[in-house]
C-alpha cells in the first residue's frame, strides 16, 4: 500500500464511527519503489489530500525534514517539495503493518502490501 492510498482510507464503515480519519499507521516492513514523477498529477491531487495525514505519514517514515507540518502556500511552484511529496506518496510501499481506527481502536492489518478492511458481522 502506498502512502497516497493511506491518505484516502477511513474507518467510516464501522458502525458508530463518525469520522474515522486519519487512521493510525504502523509500519513493520516497507520498500521504496521508484516511479515516474508527474507534477501535474500531484498538483491536481493536492486539494484531495489531507495535509495533517500527509504529515503524520511523514512522521512514521521519518521524512519530517522534507515535509513541513503546515501546508505551505503555492506548493505547485516549489519543485523540490513536489518531488519530495511524490516520493512520500507514491514511492514508499508499505508491505507489512497495521492501520488503527482513531475512534474504536479497531486494527486493520496490512499483509503483503494489502490492507484488510473487512469488517465482522457485528461491526457493520
Amino acid at each position, binding site marked *: 500500500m502506498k502512502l497516497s492510498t493511506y491518505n484516502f482510507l*477511513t474507518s467510516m*464503515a464501522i458502525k458508530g464511527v463518525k469520522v474515522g480519519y486519519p487512521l493510525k499507521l504502523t509500519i513493520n516492513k516497507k520498500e521504496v519503489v521508484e516511479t515516474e514523477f508527474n507534477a501535474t498529477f500531484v498538483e491536481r491531487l493536492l486539494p*484531495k489530500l489531507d495535509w495533517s495525514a500527509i504529515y503524520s505519514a511523514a512522521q512514521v517514515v521519518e521524512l519530517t525534514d522534507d515535509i513541513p507540518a503546515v501546508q505551505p502556500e503555492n506548493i505547485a511552484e516549489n519543485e523540490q517539495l513536489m518531488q519530495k511529496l511524490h516520493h512520500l506518496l507514491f514511492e514508499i510501499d508499505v508491505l507489512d503493518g497495521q492501520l488503527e481506527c482513531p475512534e474504536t481502536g479497531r486494527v486493520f492489518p496490512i499483509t*503483503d502490501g494489502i490492507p484488510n*478492511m473487512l469488517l465482522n458481522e457485528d461491526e457493520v
Partner: protein
Amino acid sequence: MSRRPEHSAPPEIFYNEDEAKKYSQNSRIIEIQVEMAERALELLALPDDDETRLILDIGCGSGLSGSVLEDADHMWIGVDISKAMLDIAVEREVAGDVILGDMGEGMPFKPGTFDGAISISALQWLCNADKTSHNPHKRLLKFFTTLFSCLTRTARAVFQFYPENSDQIEMVTSQAMKAGFYGGLVVDYPNSTKAKKYYLVLMTGGAAPLPQALGSAEEERRVNYIKKRDACREARGKAPKKSRDWILAKKERRRRQGLETRPDTKYTARKRSGRF
C-alpha cells in the same frame, strides 16, 4: 444446477486460488475482461485532456481492468473481497494499490477522492445474501451511498454486471437512485445472447444523456405486414375487410337470408370526409 457463480458460493470462497489462476492464465477470460474494461472506461467519458486521474476499481480482482486504466495513464485503487485474486494482482506487479474489502460494507474512502469508478462483473454478487445477516437492499444502499460520497461531483461510475432477471436490475437501479445517483442502464448488443452486456452508468453531478449502446439499430426497421396480409386475402378470392366489395358481399348474404337490408347505392362504403 444453476451455472451462475453467485449461486454456488460467496465471492471470497468462489474466487479461490484455482479460480484466480484462470484470471492470469486463461487468454479467453483475460480478453473478455479487458474488452469490458475498455468499454467501461469509454462510458466513463473522462474529459479528453490526457491528464492522469484517480479511478476506483470495485471488484478489481487480479487487476486486469486496472491494467486497462494504466494503459490509459490513470492512477487506480482497487477493492476486492477475494484475497487469492488480490495476491495474483500483487504478483503481477500492477501499478495500482489493492485493498481487501467488501462492497456491501461500504467504500472505506474519504469524501471526494475519486474522479471516476469502474466495476467489471462484480455488482451481481451484491444481489445475493450469503450470510443470514446480509440484506441485499441494505448492502446495495450502503455501497451506493458510500460510493457517492467518495466520488467528486463531476464523476461517473460504470458497472458492467450480469443481472439474473429484471427484478435485480430494478433493485440495483432503485438503490442507486436512492443514494443520489443519476443515470441508467446501457445495454450493448441487445439482440445477441452472447455479446449482450449490461452497463449501469451512474452520474453524480446532475442528469446527462446516456451514451449510445453498441449494436442497437438506430432506426426501427418495421416490415409492412398489413399490405402483405391484404394481398394474401385477395389471392384467396376474398375482398379485404371494410372494402366496398366486402360490404356488398355481406349485404348480398343478408338479402339471401331474407333480412332487412338497405339498397346498394353510390354512397355504400363511401369513405367519410376528413371533416367528420
